[in-house]
């Protein structure tokens, strides 16, 4: 028997195996929202969990946080930043009426909602979306919720209204001061800590540098700070060990032991080095893909590559 690529491509037209995109919204030219139909998952999803998405059969399995879920409509919301081949390609191909090839989840241990009475929910850039379900859950638990959202500039701000609706206080920070206060989320955290000495917990989600800075900002006061780690993943089921992170000298698998960990214990330097692992390959893939898009453009096709 000769070895050939597996030809198995059955599409089971069953309940779970259809992932139709029912809504799309573009927040900026790099950030977009997809709402995917998956009634079963919308019932199971909890704040802090994520999914693994494959956009097509030769695609990569990429982890994306569940930014929202609507149990009545039976949908899962993802907010995606186009940073490389897969996310750029999805920005073009994932339109309302199309389907994802695969979406598995919800994965990870749901965020532990402590009985804290006053909390700060920090979202940096794309972390704004994943911190939303946690902020909302806390609000529903009766906590006083302070939102701190960081963006590079005014044009990138999204979901301000959604947060206003559930936060008792909202601090928006932009790098250039074009909206809210001028500064980073750490400045927002400091403001909140000064004003409210009785803050019991901080949750910070965003790029590793931002989470590290947030953890440092709260370290002096010792306020519990949870972060949601985003190492490179393959399966998301605890099988490959690719997502391992160091937390207080113990090796943990972010996909099954996390993704939430105590920010004061996380070895961020290790995480950042490991995130660079596939740099070369990622760059090659993105370049190759954008090259092919330009070629297709020349051929008169509709796909446009965002320069």
């Amino acid at each position, binding site marked *: 028997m000769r070895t050939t690529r597996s030809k*198995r491509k059955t599409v089971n037209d069953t309940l779970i195996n259809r992932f139709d995109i029912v809504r799309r919204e573009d927040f900026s030219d790099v950030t977009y929202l997809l709402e995917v139909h998956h009634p079963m998952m919308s019932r199971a999803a909890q704040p802090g969990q994520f999914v693994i998405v494959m956009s097509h059969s030769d695609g990569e399995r990429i982890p994306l946080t569940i930014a929202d879920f609507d149990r009545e409509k039976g949908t899962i919301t993802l907010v995606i930043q186009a940073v490389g081949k897969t996310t750029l390609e999805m920005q073009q191909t994932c339109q309302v009426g199309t389907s994802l090839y695969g979406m598995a989840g919800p*994965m990870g241990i749901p965020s532990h909602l402590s009985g804290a009475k006053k909390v700060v929910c920090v979202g940096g850039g794309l972390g704004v979306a994943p911190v939303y379900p946690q902020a909302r859950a806390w609000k529903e638990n009766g906590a006083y919720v302070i939102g701190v959202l960081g963006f590079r500039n005014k044009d990138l701000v999204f979901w301000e209204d959604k947060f206003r609706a559930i936060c008792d206080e909202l601090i928006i920070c932009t790098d250039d001061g074009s909206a809210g206060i001028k500064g980073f989320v750490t400045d927002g955290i400091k403001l909140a800590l000064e004003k409210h000495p009785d803050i019991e917990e901080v949750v910070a989600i965003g790029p590793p540098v931002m989470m590290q800075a947030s953890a440092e900002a709260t370290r002096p006061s010792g306020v519990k700070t949870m972060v949601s780690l985003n190492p490179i993943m393959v399966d998301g*089921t605890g099988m*490959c*060990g690719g997502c391992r992170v160091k937390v207080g000298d113990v090796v943990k698998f972010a996909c*099954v032991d996390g993704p939430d960990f105590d920010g004061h214990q996380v070895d961020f330097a290790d995480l950042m080095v490991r995130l660079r692992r596939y740099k070369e390959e990622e760059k090659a893939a993105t370049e190759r893909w954008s090259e092919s898009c330009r070629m297709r453009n020349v051929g008169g096709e509709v796909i446009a590559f965002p320069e």
Partner: protein
Amino acid sequence: MAKKRTVRSIPQERTPVRELDPVVRATNFEEVNCGYTEPEAILESTRCLFCPEPKCIDGCPVSIDIPGFIQKLGEKDFRGAYDVITGTNLLPAVCGRVCPQENQCEGVCVVGESLVPVAIGRLERFVGDLAIQNNWVSLPYIEPTVYKIGIVGSGPAGMACAADMAKAGCEVTVFEAFHEPGGVLRYGIPDFRLPNTVVDAEIEKLEQLGVKFECNTLVGRLFTIEQMIKELGFHAVFIGTGAGYPTMLGIPGDSLNGVLSANELLTRCNLMNAREFPNVDTPLPLGKQVVVVGAGNTAMDALRVSKRLGAENVTCVYRRSKAEAPARAEEVHHAEQEGIEFHWLSNPVEILDDGEGSVYAMRCIRMELGEPDESGRRRPVAVPGSEFEIETDQVVFAIGTNANPIIGQTSKLKLNKWGYIQTDENLMTSMAGVFAGGDIVTGAATVIEAMGAGRKAARGMKAYLGIRDVGRADRTEMLFGLSVREHNFTRVRSA
């Protein structure tokens, strides 16, 4: 049988099998072992003595009627041979390829006492491949029952349980976390040992039996085992989620870039087809000097995959000696042929950082064998002052796995102290109607043992549901006017 065969009268040499040239094959993923042709299989079948008390059957974890199928094969009744095998083993094309036969059926074959034992595995594979080529399915007469069965995990354990329950007339759904079914058979064992097309064929046979596959379904998180019984209407559930969770090296430097588990390497390569990068999106960084730690089947696969992906030097580091290596003998032999270097009796102590967070070398220490330990194998002890360094840019560890934690995290099932699921002798767990088997119960084992466990659990499940297997009562006669090959199941208790 005209004349009784004796060890003297049979062909003294085992019929050789064609294999790809080691130099050529180390650059591609073509299957190494080409399998017997028909004349070769028939010639080899004449080496079986048809022992009155065949020891080989005791050696096989699922007790295949080995002389029975070999006899049919010798008579060129290939379909008959297939039916004998599938009486107990659902996946002959798979097991014939990957069973550690030298420790199982062939290890105890009587011929082996004076000659090389009968090539049972190769014969089994020959029959299994014929079945796939000719699309033979034993589609039994199935009397539908009202029962709905949920299977968690699509590895060999889950596949076996699914098939048996489907044949018992139940409506069976298999849930798999990955986007493709097959478990280790798909993501672990590489194409040059077990082509994914063979796995596809086996899955297709299950689909023909009416088994439904639901991929992209992480049970425990999307819904729990408890919910399957209470809300989703499953009358019984089988858990075959495998071991998975790789063990870390636990030495300094094991989180450096360039250090990865064999599972990650193999999943990227086999499941995500990363070897075709950038035509597919999943990358797989290639080391030039690859070191693999461990000497089990997983380690052999990682070694040989690395070689095929273009590494210049591929080295195996194992703390015991070759005699203790847990891999199948054939795989170690193939690896040696392909130019893999072996450092037996060596243990890694540290992985060295190039200053930028990547690996540049591994420090090892020589070992010698001391007193036997609990497992009966001689315990390796370090030789003081014998440290040495191996230059490397990729370290792959294949030193075993632990229980996958997800089901344990999300259900109230009783686990043992290592996190594996506890079962009784019928493989029922602490929850009524929920069965478990395969690696998630025993820890990492073999394909055939996982398959055997799936079938055993199916028997337990049928007893639990009150489904009686009438067709199995007598192999030689007709029963109620039905051929015994048509397993006729009768439901004696209503749901």
